[in-house]
């Protein structure tokens, strides 16, 4: 974990409620896809935990959904506004167990961490299959970016306006020979995926957090491997340890 000051380089809307922010700063504490950062916002007591979409040596990209007053304030910020950010939080995904053809399944605002994960897996010579789930056409974001990485991309929309009509699980059922799965999204989706998948996998969970770095026990959950803090021992849990 590191605390440092980042400078907003750009902040734009991708859809009606999802924004993309690129920040310049020290990213050296970020070690894995699926980790998150915790952002201090003026006028709000608690920091806002947001998953890392991508990063390089000195820039950080986050995609966030406007869900309350904090993220609404973030959406109004412009370059070169400065933000105090804790980086390198959470365990992130372990790519060493993926096999050659892992599924990457993102639902809604669970899509962003899949981007860096896809990038890492491709760099490791693997062939990730990306499945993105949205409610409707207007809510789709980042599908082209995944395609540009060279990944096979499937889209499911609940209303059928793009891709497969239905849920990400409907797409998963049509893919016979995947080696592993990684996912992030709303909890009912994670549960459904845990049920339909035929391999092991890693699932990223959300919880209301106090500190985001393991001190307050605000976001604890019980697993088959004992009590875990979503912020520090998670947010990624393996399928076999989850108690639904």
């Amino acid at each position: 974990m590191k605390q440092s000051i980042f400078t907003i380089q750009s902040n734009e809307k991708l859809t009606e409620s999802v924004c993309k922010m690129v920040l310049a700063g020290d990213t050296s504490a970020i070690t894995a896809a699926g980790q998150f950062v915790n952002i201090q916002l003026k006028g709000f007591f608690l920091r806002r935990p947001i998953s890392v979409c991508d990063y390089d040596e000195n820039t950080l990209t986050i995609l966030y959904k406007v869900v309350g007053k904090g993220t609404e304030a973030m959406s109004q910020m412009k370059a070169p506004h400065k933000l105090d950010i804790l980086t390198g939080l959470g365990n992130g995904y372990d790519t060493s167990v993926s096999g050659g053809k892992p599924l990457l399944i993102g639902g809604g605002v669970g899509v962003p961490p899949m981007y860096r994960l896809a990038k890492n897996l491709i760099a490791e010579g693997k062939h990730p299959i990306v499945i993105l789930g949205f409610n409707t056409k207007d809510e789709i974001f980042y599908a082209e970016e995944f395609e540009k990485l060279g990944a096979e991309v499937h889209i499911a929309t609940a209303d059928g306006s793009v891709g497969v009509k239905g849920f990400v699980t409907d797409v998963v059922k049509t893919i016979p020979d995947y080696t592993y799965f990684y996912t992030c999204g709303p909890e009912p989706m994670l549960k459904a995926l845990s049920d339909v998948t035929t391999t092991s996998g890693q699932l990223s969970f959300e919880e209301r957090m106090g500190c985001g770095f393991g001190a307050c026990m605000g976001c604890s959950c019980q697993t088959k491997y004992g009590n875990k803090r979503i912020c520090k021992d998670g947010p990624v849990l393996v399928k076999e340890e989850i108690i639904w």
Partner: protein
Amino acid sequence: MVNTKVTLSGITLDNPVIPASGTFGYGYEFAELYDINILGSFSFKGTTKEPRFGNPTPRIAECPNGMINSVGLQNPGVEKVISEELPKLAKCFHKPVIANVSGFSIEEYAYTCALLDKEPQVGILEVNVSCPNVHHGGMSFGTDPAAAAAVTKAVKAVTTKPVYIKLTPNVTDIVSIAKACEEAGADGIALINTMMGMRIDLKTKKPVIANKMGGFSGSAIFPVAVRMVYQVAEAVNIPVIGMGGVSSAEDVIEMMLAGATAVEIGAANLVNPFICKEIIEDLPRVMEKYNIKDLNDIIGGARK
């Protein structure tokens, strides 16, 4: 040169800054960020006789200038704390530590305190009769002078180390409870624990916290804490550890002027993990600014 050293029941602290129980874990997360041996001491996560997972989530709700938590005393139980956590803690913190203890019966308080009393690392036992987050838990002992006195007596009977009773602000007359603890043999008083609070989500129209209510902390409660520390310090002749919304060196000095000998920092640690380090480093500057050469000179200064 200014003097920041203060003494709690014969234990001299390099400075009065103490991270509060439940906001600092067992110190490891913070030891990754800075050398936590600069702290006066720290109060580790509240310990009970049996292991506890605590309350269902969500356990956290944001408030203006504060937060509500309803963790519910999650901890691995006193035996595991002693066998697993304290040896790890000893590697990153070399000063006497404050052991925070909770219980569901007088016997449990005594059992847990007796075990922790034997640990050489433990300098002070901070007995929490004030947790708002467990039903039939600590707070019921802290809302009645006779019950608080009974816990104090039972713990004192089985321990050799200084016993500080941590009080809840969720009472009509905190002074009577502090006095009852003093009469029962307490070596000091620590206050305040969190204030009972609640938030309701307008979208779901239900409480944000799964347990409905929780403990409100953060800078918003600082004035309440200063007032209660002032009232208690005036009424007792034992040292007081002041806490509640402290988040700057100025707040530390204000709390000491109200009567605190040492000061705990709670919720601020969760927002700025470096806050205790920053306060310790800033303290000499603020002391000089207000013409304070020795912190001991200002304890209870607002009453004089």
